[in-house]
C-alpha cells in the first residue's frame, strides 16, 4: 500500500473575522420602516418589500387569498397591463417577484445599481395602484388550482401537505398549504383579492429593505419619493394557536405503483420566539441537519435506504412543524420508519457526545459568513429581524448564542420538543406493498387514506 502526499491534516490558519454588515433603519411618516444595508464591494442592489399580509393575515374562509393577491400584483398596474408591466421591468434586466408565506407577503427585485430608481418606481406603482384585472385573476386562479394538482402528483410535496394536514387539528390554519386548499381557492373571486389588498397592503406595518450598492441618502430619498404617498395601516396577522390532533399513529397515503415511500415523522414544533430556538437548532443539526448527522448517517451511509434523510424545525409566528424526512425504497419502508423512530426517541435519552455537539456548533457557526456572500442573502437576513421584531444586534450575537448551547441544553430541547408519544408518521407510498409491514411494527394505529 503506497501513500502519496501528506497524511497529516492541515491545521486552520488564523480566521479572518467576519461581521454582518451594519445597517440603519428609518421610519417614514406613513409608518413604513426603511432598512438600509450598504455592502462594500457589491455591484447589485436588492430591494425587498415586506408586508404583514401573508396567510396569517387572511380570513380563514378566504384561505389562499394572500397568495393569490401577491401573485396577481405582478400582472400590472392601472397604467400598465400585464404585458406592458413585464416589458417595462424586464427591459431593465429586472424580474419582479411577489409571493406570500404564512408570516408575510414579499415583493421585490434585484438590479444593477443604475436601475434602482426605475425599479423602485415600478415596484411602488405595483403595490399602490395594482390593476387586478378580472381576466388575469381568473387565469392565475386556474393556474394555482392546476399547480396544486401538479404538487399532489409529486410524492414529496404530497407528503409535506399530508403531514401537516394530519398533524394539526381542524382549528389550526397551519394544517393546510399557505396558498390554500383547492376547495378554498375555488371560491375566491377578484373582489376578495381587492379587499385583501385594500385592508392589508398598507405601509403601517410594512418594511422596505434595500441592500447592496447604493448611496444611503439617495436610497432614502427614493423610498420617500416612491412610497411616501402610500397610506394606511392594516390590521395585520391573526393570532394562531396551534393544536395537534395528538396521539402517536401512522397515516399511509396510498399512491399505487410508487417505487419509493416518502416518509415524514414528527410533531408540532416551536415558534420563532421560543427561548429554545438556538438549542433546538443545534440539537436538530446533529440529529438530522448535516451530512454526518445521526439520521443521514444511519439511513443513507449505513443502510443505503435513501438518497438522503434529514430533520428540522419550521418556526413561524406560531409553532410550525418539526419533521424528519426521507424518500426510501418501497421494500424497506417499515424498517426505515422503525430506524427513524429509534433515532428520534433516542434524541432526548442522553446528552449528545462531545464531538457531535462540537461539530454541530462548528458547522452552524462556521457557515455563518457563507450565508451572506450575496447581496440577496444579506437583504433576506433582515427579514426575520423586521418580521419578528428581533433585536437589531441579532446577527451580531447569533454565533455567541449558538456557542452557548451546552450538552444539557441540547438534550433538554430534545426531551421537551421530540416527545415520542406524539410522533405522527406519514408515508406516501404503495399501501398494498407497505401496509402489512408497517402494521407489524406495532408503533401505533395505522390508517390508510387515498391520495387527494
Amino acid at each position, binding site marked *: *500500500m503506497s*501513500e*502519496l*502526499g*501528506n*497524511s497529516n*491534516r*492541515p491545521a*486552520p*490558519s488564523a480566521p*479572518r*473575522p*467576519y461581521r454582518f454588515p451594519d445597517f440603519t433603519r428609518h421610519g417614514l411618516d406613513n409608518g413604513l420602516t426603511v432598512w438600509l444595508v450598504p455592502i462594500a464591494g457589491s455591484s*447589485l442592489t436588492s430591494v425587498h418589500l415586506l408586508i404583514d399580509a401573508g396567510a396569517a393575515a387572511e380570513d380563514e374562509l378566504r384561505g389562499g387569498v394572500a397568495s393569490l393577491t401577491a401573485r396577481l400584483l405582478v400582472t400590472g398596474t392601472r397604467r400598465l397591463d*400585464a*404585458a406592458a408591466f*413585464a*416589458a417595462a421591468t*424586464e*427591459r431593465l*434586466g*429586472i*424580474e419582479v417577484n411577489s409571493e406570500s408565506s404564512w408570516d408575510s407577503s414579499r415583493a421585490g427585485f434585484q438590479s444593477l445599481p443604475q436601475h434602482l430608481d426605475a425599479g423602485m418606481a415600478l415596484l411602488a406603482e405595483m403595490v399602490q395602484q395594482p390593476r387586478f384585472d378580472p381576466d*388575469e385573476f381568473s*387565469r392565475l386562479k*386556474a393556474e394555482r388550482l*392546476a*399547480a396544486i*394538482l*401538479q404538487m*399532489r*402528483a*409529486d410524492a414529496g410535496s404530497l407528503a409535506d401537505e399530508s403531514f401537516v394536514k394530519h398533524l394539526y387539528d381542524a382549528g389550526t390554519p397551519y394544517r393546510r398549504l399557505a396558498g390554500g386548499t383547492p376547495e378554498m381557492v375555488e371560491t375566491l373571486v377578484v373582489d376578495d383579492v381587492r379587499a385583501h389588498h385594500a385592508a392589508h397592503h398598507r405601509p403601517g406595518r410594512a418594511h422596505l429593505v434595500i441592500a447592496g450598492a447604493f448611496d444611503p441618502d439617495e436610497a432614502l430619498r427614493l423610498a420617500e419619493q416612491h412610497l411616501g404617498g402610500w397610506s394606511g395601516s392594516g390590521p395585520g396577522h391573526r393570532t394562531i394557536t396551534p393544536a395537534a390532533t395528538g396521539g402517536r399513529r401512522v397515516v399511509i397515503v396510498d399512491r*399505487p*405503483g410508487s*417505487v*419509493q415511500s416518502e416518509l415524514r415523522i414528527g410533531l408540532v414544533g416551536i415558534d420563532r420566539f421560543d427561548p429554545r430556538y438556538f438549542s433546538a437548532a443545534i440539537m436538530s443539526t446533529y440529529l438530522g441537519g*448535516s451530512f*454526518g448527522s445521526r439520521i443521514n*448517517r444511519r439511513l443513507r*451511509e449505513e*443502510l*443505503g*435506504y435513501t*438518497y438522503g434523510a434529514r430533520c428540522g424545525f419550521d418556526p413561524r409566528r406560531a409553532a410550525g412543524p418539526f419533521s424528519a424526512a426521507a*424518500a426510501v*425504497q418501497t421494500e424497506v419502508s417499515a424498517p426505515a420508519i422503525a430506524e427513524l423512530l429509534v433515532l428520534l426517541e433516542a434524541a432526548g435519552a442522553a446528552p449528545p457526545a462531545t464531538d457531535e455537539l*462540537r*461539530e454541530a456548533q*462548528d*458547522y452552524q*457557526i*462556521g*457557515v*455563518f*459568513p*457563507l450565508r*451572506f*456572500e*450575496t447581496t440577496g442573502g444579506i437583504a433576506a437576513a433582515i427579514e426575520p429581524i423586521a418580521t419578528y421584531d428581533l433585536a437589531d444586534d441579532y446577527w451580531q450575537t447569533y454565533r455567541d448564542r449558538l456557542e452557548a448551547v451546552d450538552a444539557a441544553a441540547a438534550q433538554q430541547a430534545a426531551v421537551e420538543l421530540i416527545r415520542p408519544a406524539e410522533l405522527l408518521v406519514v408515508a406516501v407510498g404503495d399501501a398494498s406493498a407497505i401496509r402489512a409491514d408497517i402494521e407489524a411494527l406495532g408503533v401505533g394505529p395505522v390508517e390508510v387514506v387515498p391520495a387527494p
Partner: protein
Amino acid sequence: MPHIPIERHTLPNGLRVILSPERRTPIVGVNLWYDVGSKHERPGKTGFAHLFEHMMFQGTANVAKGEHFSLVQAAGGTLNASTWMDRTNYFETVPSHQLELALWLEADRLANLLPAMTQEKLDNQRDVVKNERRWAVDNQPYGTWDEKLQELLYPVGHPYHHSTIGSMDDLSAASLDDVGEFFATYYAPDNAVLSVVGDFEPAGALAMVERHFGPIPANHRRPPVPDTEIEPLIGAEIREVVSDRVPLPRVYAAYRIPVFGTDAFDALEVAVDLLGTGRASRLYGRLVRERQLAQDVTVMAFPIVSGAAIFSLWATARPGIDHEALTEAVLGEVDLLTDEGPSDVELERVQNLHAAGIESGQERISERADRLSMYACLFDQPERANSEVARYGAVDADRVRSAMAASLRADNRVLLTYLPAEGDQPGTEQAA
C-alpha cells in the same frame, strides 16, 4: 461588468490551476473538474461515472468513511459534487482560514482512494444511487424526460445515448474492479482543473496546491476520447408518447444543435431567453398569458461540448387543453421567431436580463469557481468566464434567425408527449 482576475499555473504533473482572488467575504471556494463524464462509460456500465463520484466521498487511507463531509462541515464549509455527460466536478466553500483543509482533502482522495476501498462501501453507495434514481426519475412525475430525450436524439451506441444516472441493471453490475480501473484511468492530475476562488493570497495558495497535489503522478495512458461524431441533423421527426402518473399532459420538443462554445450555440442561448425567460418572453406571453394553453413553459440549451448539443423546450397543458393544440402552438411560436427574428426591444430585454443574471451568479464564490473550471476544463480558456456578457451581447437578430433556421427544424426534432395514464399503468408507445 466585473472582471474576474485569473492567474493560471500548470504543475509538472499536468494539473491545471486557476487562482482568482476576491476578498469581499472571508470565504474561499475550491473546485475541481475532472475531464470524465457519462460519455466515457463503456457499454453495460451506464451510471458508473456518477456512482464513482459517490465513492470519492467514502474515505481514503487517511480519511474515514463519511469523514470528508464531516471535516468540511465542521470547518464551517459546504460541499458537493456532480456528474454530467462531459465531466465530473467536486467543490467546497469554506471560511478562508480552512483553505488548506479543503485542498488537502481533494488531493488526498485523488492520491489515496483505492487502499481504503471495500465491497461494503460500494454496495452501500450502489443502494444510495439506486435510491437517487428512484427519487429523481422513477418516482417523479415526468421524471424520465431527459433520459428519453437523450435516447431519441442520439443513436444507440452513441456516448450521449444514455443518461448520466444510468440503468438499474448496470448499477447492479458495477464491481470493485470497475472502481479501481476507472480511478486509475481518469482520476489523474493531468485530467483535471483546480480552481481556487475567493479570500486568499495567491502565492501562499499556490504553495499549498504544490505541496498537496505536486507529488501525485500524471497518467499518460488514458484511452482515446470517445467518438461523439454525429450528423448535425436527425433527418426526420421522431415522436413518442409516454403514459405516466401525471395530472396534466406535457409536451417536450428537442433538437440537435451545434455544441457549446460555438457562435451558433451562443445565438441559440439568446433564442432560449427570447422564447422562455421572463413574463415578457414569447412563450410565456402568448401561450401562458394570452391564449392560456399552458400552465408553464421552460426552454433550455444543454451545454454539451462534443458531437451535438441539445435545445429543448416544454410546456405543460392547462386542464382541458388538448396536447396536440398545445404542441402546434409551441412549434408555431418557434417557427414565428425563426421567420421574423427578434425585435431590438426583445434583444435589449434578454441582454439586460442576461447581464444582471451573470452579475448575480458571480456573487457566489462557488459559481465563479465552477465557471472558471468549466472553461478551463472544456476549452482550456478560463478567460471565457469574462466574456460571457460580451459574447451574448454580440448576438444580433440575424444570428438568432440563422441559428434557429439551421437547427430548429421539423426534420431535426424530437416530440415527446407525457399523457396522464389511464388507471395506474404507465407505459411508452412509439409513434411515427
